[in-house]
C-alpha cells in the first residue's frame, strides 16, 4: 500500500498528520488579506450602509426613469436609439474594465452594486447640487462668469464626491472584498461607468428638444456622437483616479494608509475634471480649438490612469503568485505558468506563443486561473471544488496540442 500524496501546501509531519508549509501559510494570509472570492451579500439588514445606499439609489432610479420615460413619449425613436447605443457603449467598457481586473478579481455582484450607485445614487446627489451651485455662482459673480467657470467648480466637487462616497458604502457593505488600491481603481471605474452612461442618456434626452425640437433625431445623434467620442476620458477615468486616492487615504488591509498620496490623487481627479469642464473659459477667444484641447486632456488623463494601473496592480499580481505558490511547490502547475498568470499581457502572450501548443497553453492558463479562483473562494481550504479544479487542470494539460 502506498501513502496518499499530501495536498499542495501541506507536508506530512513525523506524527503522520498534514501540516501547512510556509507557502501555504502565506497563501492563507493573502487570501484573507485580499478577500479573494469572498461572496458579497447585498441585503444585510444590520448594515446601515445598505439603507443609505437604498435611500439614495431608489429616488435616483425613480427620477431618471421618470425623466427618460416622459421624454420618450415625445421623442420616442431618437431616445430609444440613444439608450441602445449608450447601452452597447457601456457594455464595451464593462467588458474591458472587468478584463483588466484579472488577478484577485472583485465579485461581479459588487461591480453591479458600484455601477448602480454611479448611475442613480451619485447622479441623484450630484444633479441635486449642480444646478443650485451654478445658480448661486451666477447670482454672486454674474452669468457670464458662471458660464465660463461655474461648471468647472460645481461638477468636479459635486460629482467626484458623490461618486467617491459610493466607495465608502461599498467598503462598509463588503469590507473584505475591497482590500487594495487596485480594488478602488476598478470599483471607481465601474461607479464612473454607471454615472457616465446615465448622464449620457440624460444629455441625449435634453438634446432631443434642442432647436425647438425641429429635428430630434439629428440633435440626439450629435449628442451621442460627441459623448461617445470624448466620454471615455471623463467620468470613468476621473472616478477611477479618485477612488484609488480614497483607498490610499483610508488605508485597507492590502494598502497601507498614505494620506498625502490619497489626497493628491483625489485632487488630481477633481483638477482634471475641472479643466475639462472649463475648457471654453480657459481658451477664451481660442474656444474653437476646444476639440484639440480635449484630445490633449484625454491623452493626459489616460496616461495618468495607465500609471495608476501599473503602480497598483503589483499587489494583485503578488497575491496571484502567493496563492499559486503551494501549487508550484507541489508540481500542480509550473513556475512558468504561475509567472504567466501573475504577469502582464506580454507575459501571458510569451507563454502561449509556442508553435503547435498554443491552444492547449491558452486553456492551461484558464484552468489554472480557475484553480486560483477556487482556492480564493475556499479561503485556502481543501474543498471538492478546489480538488475538481486541480483535476480539470490535469485533464487540460494531458490534452494533445
Amino acid at each position, binding site marked *: 500500500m502506498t501513502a496518499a500524496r499530501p495536498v499542495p501546501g501541506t507536508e506530512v509531519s513525523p506524527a503522520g498528520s498534514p501540516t501547512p508549509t510556509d507557502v501555504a501559510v502565506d497563501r*492563507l494570509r493573502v487570501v484573507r488579506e485580499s478577500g479573494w472570492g469572498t461572496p458579497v451579500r447585498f441585503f444585510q439588514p444590520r448594515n446601515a450602509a445598505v439603507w443609505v445606499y437604498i435611500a439614495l439609489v431608489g429616488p435616483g432610479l425613480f427620477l431618471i426613469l421618470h425623466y427618460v420615460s416622459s421624454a420618450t*413619449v*415625445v421623442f420616442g425613436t431618437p431616445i430609444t436609439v440613444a439608450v441602445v447605443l449608450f447601452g452597447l457603449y457601456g457594455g464595451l467598457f464593462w467588458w474591458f474594465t472587468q478584463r483588466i481586473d484579472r488577478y484577485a478579481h472583485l465579485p461581479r455582484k459588487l461591480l453591479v452594486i458600484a455601477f448602480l450607485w454611479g448611475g442613480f445614487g451619485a447622479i441623484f446627489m450630484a444633479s441635486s447640487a449642480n444646478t443650485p451651485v451654478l445658480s448661486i455662482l451666477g447670482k454672486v459673480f454674474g452669468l457670464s462668469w458662471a458660464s465660463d467657470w461655474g461648471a468647472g467648480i460645481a461638477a468636479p466637487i459635486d460629482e467626484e464626491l458623490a461618486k467617491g462616497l459610493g466607495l465608502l458604502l461599498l467598503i462598509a457593505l463588503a469590507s473584505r472584498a475591497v482590500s487594495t488600491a487596485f480594488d478602488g481603481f476598478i470599483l471607481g471605474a465601474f461607479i464612473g461607468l454607471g454615472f457616465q452612461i446615465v448622464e449620457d442618456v440624460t444629455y441625449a434626452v435634453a438634446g432631443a428638444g434642442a432647436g425647438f*425640437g*425641429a429635428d430630434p433625431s439629428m440633435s440626439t445623434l450629435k449628442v451621442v456622437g460627441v459623448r461617445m467620442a470624448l466620454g471615455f476620458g471623463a467620468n470613468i477615468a476621473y472616478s477611477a483616479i479618485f477612488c484609488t486616492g480614497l483607498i490610499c487615504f483610508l488605508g485597507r488591509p492590502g494598502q497601507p494608509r498614505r494620506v498625502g498620496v490619497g489626497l493628491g490623487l483625489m485632487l488630481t481627479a477633481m483638477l482634471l475634471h475641472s479643466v475639462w469642464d472649463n475648457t471654453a473659459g480657459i481658451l477664451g477667444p481660442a474656444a474653437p480649438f476646444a476639440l484639440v484641447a480635449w484630445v490633449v486632456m484625454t491623452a493626459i488623463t489616460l496616461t495618468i490612469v495607465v500609471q495608476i494601473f501599473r503602480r497598483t496592480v503589483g499587489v494583485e499580481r503578488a497575491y496571484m503568485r502567493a496563492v499559486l505558490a503551494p501549487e508550484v511547490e507541489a508540481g500542480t502547475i509550473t513556475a512558468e505558468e504561475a509567472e504567466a498568470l501573475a504577469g502582464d499581457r506580454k507575459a501571458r502572450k510569451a507563454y502561449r506563443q509556442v508553435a503547435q501548443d498554443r491552444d492547449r497553453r491558452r486553456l492551461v492558463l484558464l484552468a489554472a486561473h480557475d484553480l486560483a479562483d477556487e482556492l480564493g473562494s475556499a479561503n485556502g481550504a481543501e474543498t471538492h471544488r478546489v480538488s475538481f479544479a486541480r483535476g480539470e487542470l490535469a485533464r487540460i494539460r494531458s490534452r494533445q496540442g
Partner: protein
Amino acid sequence: MPTLQQFDETVAPEGWVPVEQRWAGLDRRSLRPAAVVLAVAAVMIFAIPALDRAIPAGRAVVPGEVLALDGGVGFTPAEGWEVVDGVALGDPTRSGEYPSTAAVLVDAVSFEVTTADFAGTPQELLTQIEDLDERTSAGRGPEVSGNPRPVRTESGQEGVMTETRSATTTGLIAAFVIDGTGVEVVVTGPRDAGTGRADDVTTMIESVAPLGENR
C-alpha cells in the same frame, strides 16, 4: 503548527456581526461611513438648493441695456422689471458667446426669450413651438386661444404671435426668424394681472432685433 482547518475557523462568515459591535440592531462599524454619506447627501440635496433659494434672484434692469442672446439677437427689457436670466450686451463669456435664454420678471409676469438655429419661416417656428409644447405638456399646459397674427418689430423684423390661456394664466407666444436664428418669446402671467404690463410686453417684443440694431 496549525492545520489548514484551524485557519478557516478564524475567518468570520461574511455579514457576521460580533456581539460587541451590535447597536440598536445595526452593525456599529457601518454607522460612520453611512453617516458620512448621509451627511454629504443632505448637504447636496437639501442645504445647497435651500441656500440658492435664499439668495435673491435677479437684478433691476439698467435703463437702456440690451439683453444679448446666442445667434446675435437681443431685446431691450423694460425699466422696472427684474432680470432673472440672461446677460447684457457687452458682457459675453470669455469666448465671446451669449446664452440662448434670457428672462425678465415683474409682478409674477414673466417674459422669456429663447434662441436656437432654425431653418424656416416665423409661422413654421410658431407651429413647431406649439406642437412641442402640446406634446411635452401632454395637454396639461396653456392652450393657444386665438389665431396667429403678424407682428413687426421696430427694426423691421416680421414675426407671428398668438395668445395662450390656461385655468390660471394668460400669455402669448411670439416667433421670429432672424438670419437663421429662431427666436421664441413666451410671456406668462396670472389671469388677474390686468393689462398694466401689456405696454411693457409690447415694447419688449418690438425691441427684438439683431445685436447692434436694438433701441
